[in-house]
């Protein structure tokens, strides 16, 4: 088997040049992105966080052409701002230039959520251990990203921090192994974990508060093409100072909660309904209230055993 070339094989200067000129072509799970930007914060974060990702070229098929650049016009002299572009159009309003990398991450997620309707797309984290996968839907107050990072640092393979991709034909979960976005206090929680971790630049003052990105483990990125059958759906809820509490969720309730958390259920119509029905049939569904790291890790350990 030919050895896949990763981003790590490029020098800093080569990364900067590719981003600036024709664009850097990266395989991100089942998608291929061409990323363009002349901002130095994009180059340094991409190098730090995407090192293990497979490098492709303009001779490969490309799904999304994305760019982070300054919008035209006088305003960019008064207050430096940047915008996200997907194939020439900019779906968002501009943000301050300091938030370039988080904006790129959001933008890439947006591309997938808007265009990948051959998957059922759920707003959730997905991890796998011993061939058993868990889907963690991102409900408000779930602490999904923190939990996802904790599991990823404790032997679980990261499939995705933000989005579950369920193939409509095979019903299998596909991985993205994208960086995990962490907010506010969770940055310190994760930095205190024993395994050394690489975080991207910490950016203040986004509308989310402080934000940084945890690099996905090399193993997770190397296994990105490995699909897995859905095994469990866990609806997490962080409850300060409370002992762990888990309950089996009624299937009909889980069905509706999954729909709630889907990006494209409505668009998929009957295909979406069938995919959710299959998913619910094939998985165990739990609610999980937690506060202690040890307890919650033990719960997932047992789930995967």
């Amino acid at each position, binding site marked *: 088997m030919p050895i896949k070339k990763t981003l790590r094989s490029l020098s800093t200067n080569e990364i900067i040049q590719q981003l600036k000129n024709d664009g850097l072509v990266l395989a991100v799970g089942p998608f291929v992105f061409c990323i363009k930007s002349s901002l130095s914060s994009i180059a340094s974060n991409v190098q730090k966080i995407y090192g293990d990702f497979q490098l492709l070229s303009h001779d490969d098929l490309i799904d999304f052409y994305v760019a982070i650049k300054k919008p035209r016009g006088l305003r960019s002299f008064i207050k430096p701002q940047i915008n996200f572009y997907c194939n020439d159009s900019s779906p968002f309003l501009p943000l301050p230039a300091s938030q370039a990398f988080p904006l790129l991450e959001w933008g890439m997620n947006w591309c997938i959520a808007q265009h990948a309707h051959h998957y059922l797309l759920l707003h959730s984290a997905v991890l796998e251990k011993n061939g058993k996968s868990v889907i963690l839907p991102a409900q408000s107050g779930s602490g999904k990203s923190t939990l996802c990072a904790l599991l990823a640092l404790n032997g679980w393979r990261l499939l995705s921090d933000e989005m579950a991709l369920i193939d409509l034909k095979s019903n299998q979960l596909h991985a993205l192994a994208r960086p995990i976005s962490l907010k506010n206090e969770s940055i310190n929680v994760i930095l205190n974990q024993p395994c050394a971790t690489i975080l991207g630049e910490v950016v203040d003052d986004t509308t989310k508060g402080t934000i940084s990105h945890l690099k996905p483990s090399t193993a997770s990125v190397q296994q990105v093409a490995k699909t897995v059958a859905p095994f469990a759906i866990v609806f997490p809820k962080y409850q300060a100072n409370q002992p762990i509490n888990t309950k089996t969720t009624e299937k*009909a309730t889980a069905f509706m909660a999954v729909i709630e958390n889907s990006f494209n259920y*409505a668009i998929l119509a009957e295909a979406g309904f069938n995919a959710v029905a299959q998913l619910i049939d094939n998985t165990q569904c739990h609610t999980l209230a937690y506060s202690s790291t040890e307890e919650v890790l033990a719960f997932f350990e047992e789930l995967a055993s």
Partner: protein
Amino acid sequence: MRIIKTCNLVTKDFSEQVIVFDPNTGQTHCLDSNVNEILNQLTVDIPKPLSQLKQFFIQDCLDDEKTMLKDYIQDMIDNLLQLKLIRVYSS
């Protein structure tokens, strides 16, 4: 009043609930599983009188149960009409 079922409904049964997808509106509804009993008695092309439908469900009931059950069925029918899962047939 005669009623018919909306075309192409897709359902997924669970123990106490049924999830109904209506491709005409794109809506998904989570309903009491008894609704399924009603939907199963209806067709998309042959209208059925409401009285006949009620009679089917109450035939084996005691008299004091009958009134209650009729009201319950009427509530479900009203709800299904509102959700457009069934409609009043007008020819």
